[in-house]
């Protein structure tokens, strides 16, 4: 566990020294802030919810998770530090968890910075706190799944751009697969609904905590972290 902490804090700090995390956070806040305020003015300040932030926010989160994670392993491979990590007395699982938690830290900071949207609502109005809390829970769960997918994508290549594209591909496929539900037979539709990242998110925005959704996001996270470990192992044998 000590090694996980070591790698996580190294990862978190290196995010802070690289411009990427700042740019990503800046653009994320700029876009979500714009949508948040235009939505409020659009409703004439009658709907005091964070829906304006959430609707583009969830998709932006996917995009930015792909950007944040693209370098995690791909850059190590390019720099050659991959050999340092993989020949240190550290388990592959510890490397994966450390990298994952380090970037989860950045994501949490980014989400924490958006907390001023609900704080503004509380200050000036009387919003329904329940859906706001569950929405944030949903964002964190969605974000952690997206990071795991991004980490996996980063483990299959030494090219950051390729990693980002692979991650984006998987993420958007899992997101938009929900749109196809109506077009296919019901049994297939149920399956699509279950694997869709989008389908499980909606409940959270309505203030509903569905354990199936929580389990779904946690399973996606665990599955892609596991695949990342396997991908590293495969690299040792190839």
């Amino acid at each position: 566990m000590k090694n996980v902490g070591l790698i996580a804090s190294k990862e978190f700090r290196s995010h802070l020294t690289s411009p990427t995390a700042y740019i990503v956070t800046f653009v994320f806040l700029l876009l979500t802030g714009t949508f948040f305020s235009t939505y409020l003015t659009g409703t004439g300040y009658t709907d005091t919810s964070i829906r304006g932030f959430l609707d583009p926010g969830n998709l932006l989160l996917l995009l930015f998770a792909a950007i944040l994670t693209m370098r995690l392993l791909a850059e190590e491979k390019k720099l050659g530090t991959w050999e340092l990590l993989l020949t240190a007395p550290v388990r592959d699982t510890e490397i994966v968890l450390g990298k994952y938690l380090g970037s989860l830290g950045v994501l949490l900071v980014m989400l924490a910075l958006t907390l001023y949207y609900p704080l503004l609502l509380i200050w000036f109005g009387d919003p329904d706190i329940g859906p706001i809390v569950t929405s944030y829970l949903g964002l964190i769960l969605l974000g952690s799944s997206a990071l795991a997918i991004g980490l996996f994508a980063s483990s299959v290549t030494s090219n950051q751009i390729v990693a980002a594209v692979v991650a984006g591909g998987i993420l958007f496929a899992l997101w938009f697969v929900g749109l196809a539900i109506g077009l296919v037979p019901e049994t297939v539709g149920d399956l699509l609904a279950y694997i869709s990242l989008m389908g499980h998110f909606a409940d959270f925005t309505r203030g509903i905590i569905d354990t199936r959704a929580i389990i779904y996001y946690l399973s996606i996270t665990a599955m892609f972290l596991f695949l990342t470990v396997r991908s590293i192992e495969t690299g040792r044998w190839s």
Partner: protein
Amino acid sequence: MIRVQNLTKYYGERLAVDDISFNVEKGEIVGLLGPNGAGKTTTMRILTGFLMPTRGDVWVAGHNMAQNSLEGRRHIGYLPEAIPLYTDVTVRSYLEFAGRIRGMDRDQVRTRIDDVVDLCHLEEYIDVLIGKLSRGFRQRVGVAQAILHQPEVMILDEPTLGIDPIQVAQTRQLIKDLGREHTILLSSHILPEVSMTCDRVVIIHEGQIVAEDRIENLSSIITGSRSIRLQVQGPADKVTARLQRIDGVRQVRYEEPDHIVECPPDQDVRPKIMDAIVRGGWILLEMEAVEMSLEDIFLELTTEEYDEDEEGLSEDEEGLSTGDSEEDEE
């Protein structure tokens, strides 16, 4: 300390290392020598646990690297061919991370950093971003991380690649100094480097070991003879013919303006040569015993599949130089 047994590694279909075995004893400095693509890096990557072997076993400090890799890795300091540096941190924080990840605690790392910075002459650069360092200094940081945790075994892949001659000399000295307390396996495709720093050399070519011995034994082992170079004033063909009649001389070649005489290593034929030349009425200008350089050895070992000469002398080399006198066999 290091044991490699019947190690074989395929990358897909391509055979990179073909059934090699060798040992490195405690306190030895052994050079792994071979041209690019010979399988040196692959062998080292398997020794350090970065890669798994296709077949065969390797042990480092008593640990089988396939079954007990984590324990084995604790005893290894590794400098990969591509120096593993994070460019966005300072030398100090890089070394701190490198030490901690190898299981050292914070205080241990701090004191050791002072030691290795001193050893590797990095004092002035300790707080500089690695990205701003020149290749030579990056190499030193690479060496520093490999010795930081005082590993029993050091595996250095091309430790002097791409640095300037003065730094090369410093690095070699450092390796020699480290060799007093540590077991070192280093790889190189530069022969003088190995002959200057190593006790023993393992020569590999196309994934196979072609020779393995102490440096000083290698030249006589390979040819089973030593060479004497002569410069004689006189008709070259007559001199050659006369020299060949001397008891104990195996072969004489003429490489203008020199005659090269091959003789068994345990026999000194120089007085007889002198005598023969004087009796022939010629003048001896120079005479010199030639140790085979590692370059010659290497050329020979790696080209031997192309020539079947039992004397072990490279025919094509002779052919290039003169082409006249080598048909004369004893």
